[in-house]
């Protein structure tokens, strides 16, 4: 199982699409590591430019509705994981992106809209530091820690998705089971 949890990067916008996560021009690369430096490249040009510093230290992304919409490219979760992001938290995700995350043994965690609002309220902008999340996969809980204190939120996870996370992804799971 991968490591989950750490400092949160706040991406306060809905519909962040896979082109914004990793632009199409890098689809000519065949190695996952080549995606690393280009994560969220186009988004940075759209007013999220201050986030480069906390990006290096954070491993969890908090965002809004329909995260990961657009093309089916798995280069998006790869680019995220190359930068240490193994957990994305949002109210909901696009189908293929969500599947791709669990297929890679990573987590796309759905929290309620109000809960996401509450966690966003702890930030003072995308560059906020000092807010972190701890993920307990077995108990299905996210615990958010900030200078203001700690609060824990439950999330739903099917036994299949949990098994994928435990196995480290669909390939290892399928190879063992079928």
């Amino acid at each position, binding site marked *: 199982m991968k490591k989950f949890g750490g400092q949160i990067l706040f991406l306060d916008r809905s519909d962040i*699409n896979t*082109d914004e996560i990793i632009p*199409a021009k890098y*689809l*000519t*690369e*065949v*190695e*996952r590591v080549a995606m690393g430096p280009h994560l969220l490249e186009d988004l940075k040009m759209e007013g999220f430019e201050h986030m480069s510093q906390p990006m290096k230290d954070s491993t969890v992304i908090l965002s809004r509705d*329909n995260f990961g919409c*657009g*093309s*089916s*490219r*798995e280069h998006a*979760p*790869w680019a995220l994981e190359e930068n240490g992001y193994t957990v994305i938290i949002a109210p909901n995700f*696009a*189908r*293929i992106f969500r*599947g*791709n995350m669990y*297929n*890679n043994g990573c987590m796309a965690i759905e929290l309620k809209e109000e809960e996401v609002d509450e966690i966003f309220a702890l930030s003072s902008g995308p560059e906020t530091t000092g807010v972190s999340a701890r993920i307990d996969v077995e108990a299905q809980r996210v615990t958010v820690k900030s200078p203001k204190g700690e609060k824990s939120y439950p999330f739903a996870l*099917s*036994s*299949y998705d949990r*098994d994928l996370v435990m196995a480290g*992804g*669909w*390939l290892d799971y*399928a*190879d063992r*089971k*079928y």
Partner: protein
Amino acid sequence: MGKTLVEKIFESHLVDNPCEGVHVLSLDRVFCHEITTPPAILDLKRRGKYRVFDPDKIKAVIDHVTPAKDSLTATQGKILRDWARDMGIKDYFDIGRNGVCHAIFPEKGFVRPGFTVIMGDSHTCTHGAFGAFAAGVGTTDLEVGILKGICAFKSPETTKITITGTPAKGVYAKDVILAVIKMMTTNGVTNRVAEFRGDFVDNLGMDGRLTLCNMAVEMGATSGVCLPDMTTVEYLWPFIAGDYATREEALADFAKWRSDDDAVYADERTIDIGDLVPQVTDEYRPDVVKDITEMEGKPLHQIYLGSCTNGRLEDLAIAASILKGKKISDDVRMIVSPATPKIYSEALEAGYVKIFMDAGACLTNPTCGACLGMSNGVLAPGEAAAATTNRNFNGRMGKGGMVHLCSPATAAASAIEGKLTDPRRYM
């Protein structure tokens, strides 16, 4: 209780239910192209699992960037080529014999009613036109498909979309699917299958059905499907003639996949297209669709006729009938990419290629190219195109470029006037 076509396919291909609502299915076809397959191939190599579940069920093509435009795309092609040879994949199509994946695989008769199909490409839904369940997947799903011949899916809920009416002059399958997407919105069929029904679909040829199913994903659908009938049998007959004594026998066999009359649907919608006029998209969403009459006169820089949506012979024929004896406006350039070598060669024989060239259009080899802004006709920032493709996201055909999705007829008429044009004036 009756079952839908896709429920029948799920039932007949079920390998395992790892938990409620998750179905691991066996695969009849795993299609591969050079953009999403190489990372899977390299990962399998690294894991010491450089093998495939069945070389006859895997079909591969280089289509997105062909001929290679630089050493990176040449490397993608090389990885796929070497792998196809090493694995003994006989149905592998390289330059000279290659075409756009969702055009060449149907043309070769690779998809049959009742099949399960995956590919690392979101427009894999196209192949549902044969009454198959065909889904676009990510690279890990593709990798497991290549290795094990299985894929996991959520429950096969279906939205039944009944299309009735006879299309008016200048209205084609493309206009109809754009109107359907406008009705359903970009996520109206998310996590479901779109089943196209109604007399419009019954009367439609396979080319038109492929166009309908091709854009199902633009409503979020996992797959588009049409029920198999005599049109399906006729199209597939050259490939199945050895399996059945008569067409009627084939039809009776295919009929087992058709949705039952008392099947239960998650959602049912109806649209009458009798009064529909040619449709075109505005802005960067495929569901922002307008009547051509509202959009006429919008300036254009490029016309693109091609892609897995509308790069087939029927599409070229419609465009040629409008462009015959005409010249393309000096304000635009027009690029025509026949979707497969067979289509190209038939277009040559039918005289369409000469018509396009005399009009001042550029013909490219069969490739995706401009459709996804990777080669062969990328837009400059601030430019607009009328394209017969399926996606108009910001930057799709080039950063800062605008794409107006439309039918081959609208594209051809717009080429003559150099701006968005109602094709009915040229018919």
